[in-house]
Every structure is written in C-alpha cells, then in structure tokens.
C-alpha cells in the first residue's frame, strides 16, 4: 500500500476548499479516517489566509503555516501547524511548536505599560507617553552621570558605563541589529543577549 506522507497529508489539508483532493491518492490511509480528519481541518481553516512564520522557541527554525481570517474588522488566528515544504522540519513540530497558538493568543499578556515607583508595593497602569518620557529622562541622566569621554590615559573612549541593554533572542534579526545600532549610538558597552546564558 502506498504510504501517505505527512507532507502530502498536510498539503491536502492546506488545499482548503478543494474538498475531494483525496481521490487521486486512491484511498491510501483507509478513506474514512483521512476524510474525517480532513473534514475537521477543512471546517477550521476553510477560506482562511495562509501566512508563513517560524517557530518562536528553539533554533531548529521549524517553518510554520498560520491560518487567519478577517472577522468583525479583526484578524483572527485560527490555527498554526508545521510547514510541509520546509527542508528543516518537513511539517513536523514538537509539543512547544504545536502549541505555539497558545503563546500567540495568550490571555495573560501585559495589557498596558506598567509602572512601579521606587519603594512602591504595587504596579500602576500608565500610558505610553508617561513611561517613555520617564525612561528617556532616566537614560539621559544615567548617560550623563556615567559617560566617560577620555580614560585616565587620555584615550578617547566615549562610553556610557552605567546603562546595560540585554535581550533579543526572540527579536527578529532586524530588530536586534537596530537595537545594537541605537545602543552603541548611546555609547553603551554593556550589551548582551542569550548567547552566553
């Protein structure tokens, strides 16, 4: 019996509205199971837009297909699955990747900028302008407080010693590059991401 690969199976699912696409495969799985699975998939993603993404977890770099639909003026995420065309994962995902949808649509998201004043025992919800202004003032003050233009030997060093920036393993590369550029622009020397830790 010819084996139906996961790729072919997913391809069939991805065909969306082409409901009878299984026929040419001459019933490889036993038609009932495949048809039932496909129908379930169809109902979920029929008419959906297919968008390409990459898994946000480890660095295997599994390609994802996300299905979205516009409803009530909002883009709704319906489903995420492995991309069968990828030479990296060929459609497969691990438990983390397979549940990526729950990370994408978490109800636990930080809703608004939050602020804790020194010594305070609670968060306060603030607007963006409030926090960005305050942080900008902090950055400037700390830069001015700790900027070294020349070291003790008279070398030009133009460095900000008292601010550190760390992060970025889930940044897009372009965001990471941009962060490096801006932080070096501010004179930062303490720059780090997850490569060491």
């Amino acid at each position, binding site marked *: 019996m010819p084996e139906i690969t996961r*790729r072919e199976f997913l391809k069939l699912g991805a065909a969306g509205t082409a409901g009878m696409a299984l026929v040419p495969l001459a019933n490889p799985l036993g038609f009932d199971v495949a048809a039932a699975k496909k129908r379930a998939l169809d109902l979920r993603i029929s008419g959906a837009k297919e968008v390409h993404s990459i898994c946000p977890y480890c660095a*295997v770099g599994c390609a994802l297909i996300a299905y979205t639909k516009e409803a009530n003026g909002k883009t709704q995420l319906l489903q995420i699955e492995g991309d069968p065309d990828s030479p990296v994962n060929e459609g497969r995902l691990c438990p983390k990747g397979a549940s990526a949808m729950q990370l994408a649509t978490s109800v636990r*998201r*930080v809703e608004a*900028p939050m*602020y804790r004043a020194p010594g305070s025992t609670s968060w306060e919800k603030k607007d963006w302008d409030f926090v960005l202004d305050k942080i900008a003032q902090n950055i400037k003050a700390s830069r001015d407080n700790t900027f070294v233009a020349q070291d003790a030997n008279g070398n030009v060093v*133009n460095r900000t010693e008292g601010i550190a920036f760390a992060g970025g393993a*889930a*940044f897009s590369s372009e965001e990471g590059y941009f*962060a490096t550029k801006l932080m070096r622009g501010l004179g930062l020397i303490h720059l780090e991401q997850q490569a060491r830790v």
Partner: protein
Amino acid sequence: MTNHWRDIKHADLILINGANPAEAHPVGFQWFVKAKLDPTKGPGAGGGAKIIHADPRYTRTSAMADIYLRMRTGTDVAYFGGLINYVIQNKLYHEEYVKNYTNASFIVKQGFDFKDGLFSGYNSSTRAYDTTTWTYETEGEPIAGAPAGTTQAAAKRDKTLQDPRTVWQLMAKHYSRYTPEMVSSITGVPVDQFMQVAKLVGEMGKPDKVMTIVYAVGLTHHTTGGQLIRSGALLQLILGNMGRPGGGMNAERGHANIQGNTDHAISWEILPGYLRIPAPGQKNLDQYVQASAPKKSDPNSWNFFGTNYRNFMVSLLKGWYGPKATKDNEYAFDFIPKPATNSSWMSIYDQALKGKMEGVILSGMTATSIGPDSNQVLKGLSNLKWLVVMDALPTTSSEFWHAPNMDASSIKTEVFLLPATHWIEKDGSFVNSGRWSQWKEQVIPPEGESRHDHWVLADLFDRVKTLYKQQGGKFPDPLMALTLDYKDPKKPELDEIAKEINGKNLATGGQMTSFANLKDDGTTTAGDWIYTGSYLDAGNLMKRRNGVANPQQNDPTGMGFYPNWAWSWPLNRRVMYNRASADLDGKPWDPKRPGIQWNGTTWVGDVPDYPPTMNPKDPAAWLPFIMNGEGVGRLFSNSMIDGPFPEHYEPVEAPIENPLHPSQSADPVAFLYDQAAGRPNRFGKVDKYPYVATSYRLTEHEHYVTQHVPLLVGLQPQAFVEVPEDLAKEKGIKNGDRVRVSSERGKLEVAALVTKRLGGLKLAGSDKPVYHIGIPIHWGFVGISAEKNKDISQYWLANALTPFVGDANARTPEFKAFLVNIEKL
C-alpha cells in the same frame, strides 16, 4: 553550526556531547535518526550511522543512541583528548588533510611549554597568561602584498611533521597523557566502553567516512566552555571532517534567534559581523585593524577576513554615521564606545552590586531566572536606579521587587514593564542554528497596546535626542549623527532595516551583492557584512520558499542544500569551510558526499568557500581555510586566553581533584567575579556539598516564557529535581517527596523524581560512587504554575544554586557543573 540541520543525515558517526537533541531540539533530531536508518551510512560496511551520546543523564537521546556513555559533567576535554590521543597513537588521522589543511606542520616558538597544569607565561597574581610564547617561529620579512596591519612574517613549517617543535609533535605529546585509564578516571566512563567508542571514531579518519560532533550549552556552560568545544574541533580537524557534508562542529542553539542576534552583535565584545569592538588606545582605523585583524602568516593564505577587515569596518561606520563619517575623521571611529574591561552578562550585575550600574533594559530576557546565582542577581537589580522590562508577558525580572522574601518598600529601583509584541505580530527574519535566515510574515496585528521592541527603542532614542537638543549634555554627537533613514524614524520597517544590513553602493544607490565588493573609502555601506547578499535589488532572498515539494528542482545537488529556501550566511553557503571537503586537486574526499568540486573551470556544488574559478592546481592557489591568517585549520591557537591546546580542568566546584595535575585543579584563568570585586567567593566543597549538580531544559518548556502557556504547564506542571535511585535509597527519598537542594549560594525546595536515568560514577580510582542531581531550570515565582502553587513555589528558582563564575574566554557562567547537598523535607 558549521553545517546545518538537514546535513546531519549525511554522517556515518554522530557524537553528541553536552546536548540532548531528542528532547531539546526534537524536530532537528529527525536528521540524526535519518542517518541511523540509512543503510549506506555508518562505520565499516555501513548499516546505518552510529550515534554516541555522552552525558551524565540517560535521556531520550541516549535511548536512540547505539552507545550511551554515562559521563561526568564538564569532562569532555578529557573525553575528546582521549580520542585525539587514540587517533594519533594509532595513526588513524587523515594524513593528507592534517599536513595540508591544518597548522600541524607549523613550528612553535622556543619557550612554549606546558608543565604541572600550566602553560608557559602564567602570572598567578593577575590570574592571566602572557601569551607571547604561544606563537610560531617565523622567517624573513612580513609577507608582502597584504593591506597594512594584516600580515606578518611567514611561519616556519616542517611538512614531515618530525620536528619536535611542530604543532603536531607538541599536540601528540600534550594528549599522550590522556590514556584510556586517565580518561576513565576523570570522566567515569569505563575503559572498555571508551575503547569501543575510540575504535568507531578511529574509522572516521578515512576519506570516505565522515563524523559530526553535535553539542549545545552542556559544553558551553562551564568555566572551560570554550576549550570543551575546541577539543572537539581538534578531533574533527585531525580526522579531516571539517568543511565536509556530514561533518563539522555543530552547535544547537536554544532560542529562535540567538544566532541572528549574535551575528548582529548584541554582545559587548563585537560589532555586527564579528568585528571586534575597538579598545581604548586604538586611536584610528590603522591601529584598530592592526590589533583586530587576523594576520597573513603564509604566502598562500588569502586571509580574507583580515584583508577585508578595514572594508567591513568602514562600510559599517559609513552605514551608521552617514555624512558624519568622513575620511578626515576616520569615518567617525571615535563615535564607537571603547570598553576597558569585559562587559558581558555577569559583569552587568557585578557592576550593579558595586553601585556602578544605574539602569538596565531587559527585552525578552529575564535576569532573575537566568542567573547565575539568582539571589545575587536580585540584589543587583535592587541596587539599580531604574529597570525597564520589555516583554509580552510578565517575567521574574519585571516582578522581582515583590518576589518571595523581597521587601518591596525597601527597594528603590524604579521599574517599568512595557508590553511588547510577540514574534507573530511582526515580520523579520529568524536565523536558525544552521545559519539559515528565514523570513517570517506578520500574521496578526499587535495585541492591545503592545508595541514592537524596535519601535519602543526608536521612540526612546528620539526622546533622548530631543532632551539633548533642549538641555545639552555629555557628547551628544554620536546620537545626533546616527543614521535613521527610514520612512518614519520612530517606526522603521524591518524590511527597511534588512536592506540597510545588506548594504549599498552609495554611488549607484544599488544594493551590494557581495561583501567582497565592500570598500574602505566611504563609497559602500554594510550594516553587517556577513549578511551582504541577502537583500539584492531584485528582492529579499530570505523570503525564498523553494522547498521539499520539488526536490529535483530545488535541491539540484541532491545534498539537501536547498539553495533557494531562505538564505544562509555567508553568501548562501550551506556548509562552511567547504573547500576542505575536496582534496588538493579539488576532488571530493568522498565522491558520494561532495561539498564542492573543481570541474576544470569552476567550483560546483555548494556555494564555494573559495574563489569560484581559482584552479586548485595553480601553485598560487589559496589554502583552504580562507578566513584564517594561516589559511589552514588551527590545532594550536593563541586566540584562547587559557591555552593554545585544550586541557582538562575541573569545574570550580568539583567532587575530585584533577587527576592530571591536582596542584592546578581548576582553570587557572576562570574569572572569579566575587573575588575580583572583593566579595567572598562562596564556593562549596564536597564535605558539605557531596553531589554534582547539572541543569537542563525539558521538551515541554522554553526557558521561562512557557510558564504562561497552559498546555505546556499542563504537560510539565511543577518544579522537580531528578535524583538517582541509589542515592534516593541512601537518603530515604521516595518518588514525589519534597526535597531541599542547597548550594553555598541558595536553595531549591521541590519535588524529587527518583530515577534510573542518573547513576553513580567511579572517579579517580575511588570505589565510592559520585552522584549527579539533575535540575530542570524552568520554574520560578511567575507563571501559571507558580500562581497555582503559591504555598510551595517560594524556592523554585533553579539558578539560585549556580555559581557566579565565568569561562575564561567567553565569561559563560558555569551552569552545568556545581556542588549541592540534598535532604528530604
């Protein structure tokens, strides 16, 4: 990775050290299994690749392995050193490769020595080496024809490898101490098992066999991390496996884009494209290149990186500072900050403890959970003036001020938590472990008030600039000069930034097609030269999607390169150093598994790591490793500050004295932050902490973010440690009991999982078993599980235990080997 995920299916033998791909990179592991199931692969007559897993813990990777070695954590130099010794003693190395493609024949300077665990030049008061003897004997004048600052006199060579001062003879002598008995004494692997592996590895020096070494943070997270990896690379070089499909040294990276953001230098010591950050005292580009660029040390070495160092740096500066970067001001070289000392991860918190760090911005990264020494990190955070956390979900850093046992009212740190977008709410590329830069589309719009991290940073930068304009302040020139040539400088599109990274020809306005065309005269830009070629006038090559649906068309070599799926650096090359996959004449070492080959007029196959039409038979042809000054692989190198050959040193907290040299047990140049800062070291000894601990990740969790994902919390609901059955019996610990694990720095109180996966090791001639305790890292005081288990989650931070000490070279914390005690609660 020198190679890439799909390439692992070409291997005959797979050594896995410091890694657990079946659980930590499960989808990547399919390529290991493919090799195993392929009857044309494998040692001897084939029958499938063999997998050898060396790890203190029996995991699902071990279950799929042909040989599992229960090996003590942090002893991989001893293991690889033993294999190197076996291969050399039995003449099983790839002789032609060793002679022509490595620096085996180079003569090392008189005065270089290794004695009692120390290389020549050690200064015990500064805990540092003077490395002047770690270099080659040279002859004549500096080699002509290379740019200033990138050449030196040619190294003397003895191609017969007989001179006792050749790298080869020194290396053979160095590793002659690593006998199977010594390896066993250090690692705990029985001699017969080690020999079984050595025999398989010994076959891999044949040109028609190839072995890969796969590793992860189980190698890096040690005070000897850099050297653990280098010892594997040495083995691969003498077996002739570097540069070949199915070969190489392959690091499995743990986060979606840790690779891309290392390439783009969110790292204190580099600028994008692995250009070194300038140091104080370098007054101009000449001095910078002289101090930073590799030096041509053989007439046939291209020294491509060194030769182009200045082109890459000037193109970066021109990209960043635009019209303010001119020939007269050395292209604004002074605008780049010049650190005097190491400024990496632990240094940030070390400076905070000293009161010298005022503000920290954390973006998608939590200091508290990561540690090391989470309690000390919490003190550091409490010492800041301000902390900004940009994240989609709360973290143990955003919430540090009201963590268990913290008194919020006494903590003066001003804390901001900014809602950032998720990966799926923005486009841009992720670069996987195999250097494939894969573009993702924006799938859904930002949730609620969330903003992209780079828009937040752009907005902040804009506000800071405004403040400087209004109020003046310290040297604002670099801020004002920084180019922000985007449609909206406060909301740059990632597509615009991707174009900038690639770089352009300022005269024509066209995108650069190759870094080989970058100039040092201010006429070209490149935000990151290793990505030049990724975004052409014709479009963004990282978006390409010609995948496995049509292998005949999309994988013309049949080697799995899939050159039109995404884009890999450099220049879409899929296997780095691939010139070394072919012999001196350009024929593949193994015709069944070619990387590139010379067809008489051009190199075909993968994108060649070599000039595409350079005839290998031309006497002036370049040596194979074009990025090195030597033109060959370095068995001996002065680029590591703790020795030109890897040597086994014990972790800072170890259960035994180093059997090789008890007087110099640990790495003599490992960086002891506390000691250097005048704080007590807080290292434990076996009398109080008799068990070895090692930390790791589970399939179902990713660091800490998945504590917010209900399905995954359901699969792995609460903190635990793995305890070997024999030890549990000894301690009266039953499966599920609550236990306290303590180190000199902190404690964990969690459930015990009693298991056969861990077991005792016999070390250094003693019959008393040494046990490992296994510690998953994922839990803390934030997340679904912590909220549900408030009564028992107070001591769930695994890194409360880990030591505040760093690798000599990379300053990577020693997360993977330390001492603890365990008791039943």
